[in-house]
């Protein structure tokens, strides 16, 4: 539709530019078309479907619009009764179309010329301005032409005001702004006009770039300020100037003030919304500078808001130049100001000449700069961030200092921001680690629990034994004395820590960059990871005892081991650590089928990892540093035997486990051996009963021992179909089916 309209528009323009007599012909031609279409619409009305109807109506309006536009462009200046009527009609036409669909760039171009040329009275001009709503964009040339009309002095003051308001409201829809920016001096001169001043200020606020800020302009603005006093629009423009060149001007805005410009958009508010929706993201939002000094109410002098505002500068760089010559400010130094950094390609193009923020903490709120931080080798950038972050964390931390609890929400938000950044970078900050050292011993385990534990999970990889006395010893103390939910959260966070370390190590081993900050040997790294796993094993064993073998807790423990069992295959790191007996046996004898299922899954993964490791060893022949000790294999085989014994052969605990028969007698499970297989295992007993009831509903007595032979296989299929996938994997890989009992 819009394409069609454009074609028509250009035709209309051609026509109108043909000559003085073309007006009449066009007009008559229009009359004919109008009549034709009118009659057509009457005659065909019944047969047309609504869509076509609508389109035609649109076409019709389109035609009328062309006529109206032509009329405005070429219309005679003399006014008479009849002319007034025609004018009214055309005005209505334009208004209708504009409010409904907006106007094409060409239409706006025509109307702008008409409104500013002073052809009509200001009442008409006002109506024209009100309906100058772009369908998509406004061409920059139209605006430049319009500005030239302002110089002719044909339009009234109120029309000029309206023009500036319109320009501000439509600023985002102008396709380019380079030419307009060249007119900066002209706009600036218009500040003289008291009536225009607020609107021109707003326009300049949108238009100003760093290179527009010149000492003479600063002085002019200060003169205006002296003349008019503190005007919000002047304040806004001045603070923007300060934002760009703080070495020329200083201003501090009152904290609470929010509105600096009278809302110029009001007249076009709803229409603009419609245009935005139509355009859906086009054109890209031009950069909106925030007023550098507007912050929530100041809490303490040290921080307006916790994270500083992104603000490039530098005082020191500029003042480093000898003598601070004013002419220095006329030439931009070729660096790329942060305020203009809006996209990743921009970052890549300007990465060598990026102006860094004056306060490095500001990067936390800017994902593009986080990219930069991620790859930068400049140690001072990281040190600045380190200092700022560690001090802010300590200053804001609500339990680090007494009586600081009123800002709890703020601290939580701050931690969330940090965690978001760490997640984005997939890397922890050193300052957070240092903060944990200091604050963990004082932590009650409740405040910001989720955030705090996540910070723990982002501790950068380091020597476990080094970190243990600083962190993990304190953490275990809290762990053992807190609720089961806290224990689960800690296990979860340690799982994430392990995962982060593994990812980091697997990257590091493959990339092995020369500049790698940690000059570690693989053996040392693996040792550290295995110590972490053993630590969690110790926590788990003790926690199981403390919490009476809670199934809920066991789930979290097994989740951790799901990561552990797959290290060799998933991360390609030479490490297999088994779970401790204190985890294995409670899981094996659990009453919960999902635990048993998870255990089987883990056993299967261990098996695959160990097999892969053994295979690699055989291939490489050479005895590598990382061959696993036979102890690991023995231990695994031991667990495997126990599992198979409990699930399949009903011969559990053949070796290494002695229970006094008297005890078993007392517990009336003297025949315990037969009580442990897929049918009798306490976690699966229910399945067995359901299986029998379902398959042989007529049977009067449920005879569990009847599940054998063929029935055993059916039962297996039944179990698998019930979602015990871990069990399935385990049985498929670890049990030779010939041994069906």
């Amino acid at each position, binding site marked *: 539709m819009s394409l069609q309209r454009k074609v028509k528009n250009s035709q209309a323009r051609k026509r109108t530019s043909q000559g003085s007599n073309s007006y009449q012909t066009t007009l008559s031609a229009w009359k004919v078309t109008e009549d034709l279409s009118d009659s057509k619409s009457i005659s065909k009305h019944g047969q047309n479907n609504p869509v076509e109807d609508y389109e035609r109506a649109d076409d019709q309006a389109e035609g009328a619009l062309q006529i109206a536009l032509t009329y405005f462009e070429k219309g005679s200046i003399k006014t008479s009764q009849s002319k007034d009527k025609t004018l009214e009609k055309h005005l209505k036409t334009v208004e209708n179309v504009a409010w409904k669909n907006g106007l094409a760039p060409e239409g706006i171009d025509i109307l702008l010329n008409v409104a500013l040329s002073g052809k009509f009275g200001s009442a008409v001009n006002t109506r024209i301005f009100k309906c100058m709503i772009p369908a998509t964009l406004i061409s920059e040339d139209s605006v430049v032409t319009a500005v030239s009309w302002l110089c002719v002095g044909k339009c009234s003051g109120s029309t000029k005001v309206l023009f500036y308001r319109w320009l501000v409201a439509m600023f985002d829809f102008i396709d380019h702004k380079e030419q307009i920016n060249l007119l900066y001096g002209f706009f600036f001169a218009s500040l003289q006009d008291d009536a225009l001043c607020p609107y021109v200020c707003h326009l300049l606020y949108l238009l100003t770039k760093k290179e527009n800020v010149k000492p003479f302009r600063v002085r002019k603005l200060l003169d205006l300020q002296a003349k008019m006093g503190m005007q919000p629009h002047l304040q806004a423009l001045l603070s923007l100037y300060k934002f760009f060149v703080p070495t020329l001007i200083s201003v501090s805005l009152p904290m609470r003030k929010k509105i600096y410009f009278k809302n110029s958009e009001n007249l076009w508010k709803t229409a603009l919304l419609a245009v935005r929706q139509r355009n859906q993201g086009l054109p890209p939002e031009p950069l909106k500078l925030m007023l550098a000094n507007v912050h929530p109410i100041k809490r303490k002098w*040290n921080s307006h808001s916790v994270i500083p505002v992104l603000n490039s500068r530098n005082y020191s760089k500029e003042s480093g130049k000898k003598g601070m010559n004013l002419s220095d400010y006329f030439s931009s130094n070729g660096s790329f100001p942060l305020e203009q950094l809006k996209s990743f390609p921009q970052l890549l193009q300007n990465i060598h000449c990026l102006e860094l923020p*004056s*306060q490095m903490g500001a990067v936390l709120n800017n994902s593009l700069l986080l990219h930069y931080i991620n790859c930068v080798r400049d140690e*001072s950038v990281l040190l600045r961030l380190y200092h*700022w972050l560690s001090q802010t964390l300590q200053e804001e931390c609500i339990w680090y200092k007494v009586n600081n609890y009123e800002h709890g929400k703020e601290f939580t938000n701050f931690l969330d921001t940090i965690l978001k950044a760490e997640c984005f970078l997939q890397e922890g900050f*050193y300052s957070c680690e240092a903060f944990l050292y200091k604050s963990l011993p004082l932590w009650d385990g409740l405040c910001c629990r989720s955030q705090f534990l996540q910070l723990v999970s982002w501790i950068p990889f380091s*020597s476990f034994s080094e970190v243990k006395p600083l962190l993990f010893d304190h953490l275990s103390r809290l762990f053992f004395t807190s609720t089961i939910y806290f224990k689960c959260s800690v296990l979860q966070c340690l799982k994430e820590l392990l995962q982060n370390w593994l990812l980091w190590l697997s990257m590091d081993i493959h990339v092995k960059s020369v500049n790698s900050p940690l*000059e570690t040997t693989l053996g040392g790294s693996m040792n550290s990871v295995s110590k972490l796993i053993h630590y969690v094993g110790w926590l788990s064993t003790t926690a199981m005892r403390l919490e009476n073998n809670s199934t809920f807790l066991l789930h979290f423990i097994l989740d951790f081991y799901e990561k552990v069992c797959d290290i060799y295959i998933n991360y390609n790191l030479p490490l297999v650590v088994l779970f401790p007996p204190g985890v294995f046996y409670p899981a094996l004898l659990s009453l919960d089928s999902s635990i048993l299922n998870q255990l089987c899954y883990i056993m299967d993964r261990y098996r695959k990892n160990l097999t892969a490791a053994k295979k690699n060893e055989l291939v490489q022949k050479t005895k590598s540093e990382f061959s696993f000790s036979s102890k690991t294999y023995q231990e695994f085989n031991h667990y495997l035997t126990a599992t198979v014994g409990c699930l399949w052969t009903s011969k559990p605990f053949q070796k290494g486990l002695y229970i006094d028969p008297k005890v078993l007698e007392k517990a009336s499970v003297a025949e315990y051996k037969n009580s442990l297989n897929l049918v009798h295992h306490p976690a699966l007993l229910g399945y067995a009963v359901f299986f029998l009831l379902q398959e042989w509903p007529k049977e009067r007595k449920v005879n569990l021992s009847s599940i054998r032979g063929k029935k055993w296989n059916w039962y297996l299929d039944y179990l698998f179909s019930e979602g015990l996938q871990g069990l399935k994997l385990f049985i498929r890989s670890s049990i030779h089916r010939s041994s069906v009992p």
Partner: protein
Amino acid sequence: MDSYDAPESTPRQCASSGLKDYFIGATPLQKRLESVRKQTSFIPTPPRRKIPQCSQLQEDVDPQKFAFLLHKQWTLYSLTPLYKFSYTNFKEYSKLLNAFIAAEKQKGLAVEVGDDFNIKVIFSTLLGMKGTQRDPEAFLVQILSKSQLPSEHREGKVLWTGWFCCIFGDSLLETVSEDFTCLPLFLANGAETNTAIIGTWFQKTFDCYFRPLAINAFNLSWMAAMWTACKMDHYMATTEFLWSVPCSPQSLDISYAIHPEDAKALWDSVHKTPGEVTQEEVDLFMDCLYSHFHRHFKIHLSATRLVRVSTSVASAHTDGKIKILCHKYLIGVLAYLTELAIFQIE
């Protein structure tokens, strides 16, 4: 300059670290973390320190030059290293800071940098105020009110003073690159609002961070012991301790004043290692005071909180306020405060 027992020789620095194996050729950032680890894993302060020596100022510096810093109450702050700070730009800094203050004072009104205001900002170095040659030069910022009469060119009243220094700050200096200037200790005298404005300007300009430096009771006891141990030609003030008893509705303060010579005598009786103060001696010294007090008043001072210590050398309050009285020991007092400030920013 006699040999100062630099922190390298203290036990916490000597503690062997397995981390060394992990951090070969470590970056400043890792050195930083390593030192934080050390600090956290061992007792926060070294168990022994030098007794402040007579004058540790550079030989060619007249100690009287800093007389104006004495007998004033200073509020203490710790300060992270200043980024891209330059001693050659003091003129520009004063111009910018002047405009910044003017703009902050008349909210909303813009001012031109370099304009004439009714205040004057002066940056100047405190030459010689350092512990070792490596310590960066200390500097002073003063806000003066300008005299309204143009004929009189004399400077007006000092409204606010603040100074930045680093005395024996080696442990911090090691961990930063040359873009930074380490002056971890900041002392301010004057209206808090002014400190806020000036602090904000420094934070924005040099990407640093100010934090109030409180002195806990543990460190106050150390100060009490070290300052009592100082040799004095004549004592200017009594030695006084202030304890606070947390009880409602109002807290109760217990003041305990001793004749300085008695305090010195007590110190001499517990003091063993010449030239040094150890943790045991500090504890013993305080315990003697406690038991003496208990004998007379049956109050266990050890159950209360020490909030202020005043001696002839200096007096310090737990809020982070200090007054230095004796110019001989100026550097010694500042060295300990620098140590505390460095501890806080690590």
